[in-house]
């Protein structure tokens, strides 16, 4: 039981519901600074988000954050991790679903559940190179089409590639 979660009944209810329904696929959860974060297996991302949206009322996806853990993951950790920041109106509860993605793995896109994920996933594809299966039109959003490489990766030089576009 995470300490401090008790005073937040709404988050507690969500946490119990999720551990009940998806017990197997929860890899870990943390509750610091009054923010609940639950780490999930990559495969069950879509069903979890679907239930969160339809049954628990998390009707808006604020942001999808892509992390490159090249330097901080240490050994064994996955190269990338994706954070889905959800919030629920009118309860104003916040929830973060964390999913680890190894190099070259595909994550299924959540645009079917949350429309605002469309550009967020395109941005992550453009800057980090994580592909999203089932995304309506997965194209680069910032960089020109013929740009090779993904700038936000830790191994991408800050000054940019010398011969780059």
């Amino acid at each position, binding site marked *: 039981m995470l300490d401090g979660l008790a005073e937040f009944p709404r988050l507690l209810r969500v946490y119990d519901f999720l551990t009940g329904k998806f017990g197997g696929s929860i890899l870990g959860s943390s509750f*610091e*600074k009054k923010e609940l974060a639950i780490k999930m297996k990559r495969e069950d991302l879509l069903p979890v988000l679907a239930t969160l949206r339809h049954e628990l009322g998390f009707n808006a996806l604020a*942001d999808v954050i*892509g992390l490159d853990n090249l330097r901080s993951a240490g050994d064994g950790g996955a190269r990338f991790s994706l*954070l889905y920041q959800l919030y629920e*109106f*009118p309860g104003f509860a916040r929830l973060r679903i964390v999913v680890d993605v190894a190099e070259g793995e595909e994550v299924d896109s959540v645009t079917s559940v949350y429309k605002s994920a469309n550009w*967020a996933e395109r941005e992550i594809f453009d800057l980090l190179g994580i592909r999203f299966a089932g995304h309506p039109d997965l194209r680069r959003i*910032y960089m020109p089409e013929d740009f090779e490489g993904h700038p936000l990766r830790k191994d991408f030089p*800050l000054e940019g590639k010398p011969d780059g576009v």
Partner: protein
Amino acid sequence: MAFKELELNMGPQHPSTHGVLRLKLAVDNEVVLSIEPIIGYLHRGMEKLWENLTYPQIVPLTDRLDYLAAVSNNLAYVLAVEKLMDLEIPKRAQYIRVILAELQRLASHLAAVGFMANDIGAMSVLLYCFQIREGILDIFENYTGGRLTVHGMRIGGVPFDLDEKVTAMIRKTLAGIPEKIRDIEGLLNENRIWKHRTKGIGLISPEDALARGLTGPALRATGVAWDIRKNIPYCSYEDFDFDVPVLKGGDVYDRYIVRMEEMRQSMRIIEQALEKLPPGIFRATVPHSLKIPVGEVFFTIEAPKGELGFYIKSNGTDKPERVKMKSPSFINLQSLELMCKGNLFSDVVGILGSLDIVLGEIDK
């Protein structure tokens, strides 16, 4: 005759796309069939830069995100870092921050209403809005020295104390604003052409708005009372009483009315904050070479354009591991397609103005 839709290209250098945004439109003689915003012309790679700068060095860079509301960007980033460090901010600094943030909201809404009115043709309203906005920029210039890139926040508080000169200037400027706002409303609110160009245009339902993550005045115009200052109070907003204007129409006219109303509420907050300004220090002591233990935080504030958030992950060094900005304009722009469906080509300009997007924040 084979149906051939006209492929139109608006931008990236177009008078009313508020910066370098390109809109690919398919138009069947004036009726918009499909619209696809293309962004990236102002991408400066902020997030890559941030990974190589120390925490205090990032603050001036956040000025350049939403360049019409620099102080709000500073506030969002600075509050996120302070939450990450669990740093206690003195009450006086919080009140000064609220005053600066609300002044910035006033200036940003004035710019938004001015640009929108100018796009729809009422060009004098733009000049009247900017006349008022100049007064607010002068306050910023007297307080921190910068008009647009204000750099008005530091980690731990505010750069200078709010001395008598600046307070008197704020009171004098605020005294003149209500009368000017009444003039603008007199020019627009009842004007039949304005109502015709904005009522029932760019409609979006509350469910669609929430599903697409719309936030800010655009969301509050669809009837969803979501204002982070009220619902998840930060930076001692709970000490002030102000109400959140919410309308049901969900069209361009209601967004305009919500913004005008929010300007009045901001002035109310500033007056209360000036009266109840507690004594004390205006900046907590923070070491110059700031090192933050490992942790992560996602913190959002109610910026003029919508819910502006910062996700910061620290790795114990003085440089953040990752800083991601959740930009309201980036997400609001995605619902432009839904709003423009079936409207005419000349409405796209009005809808884009009512969404109040800023490209610096979208392209990062």
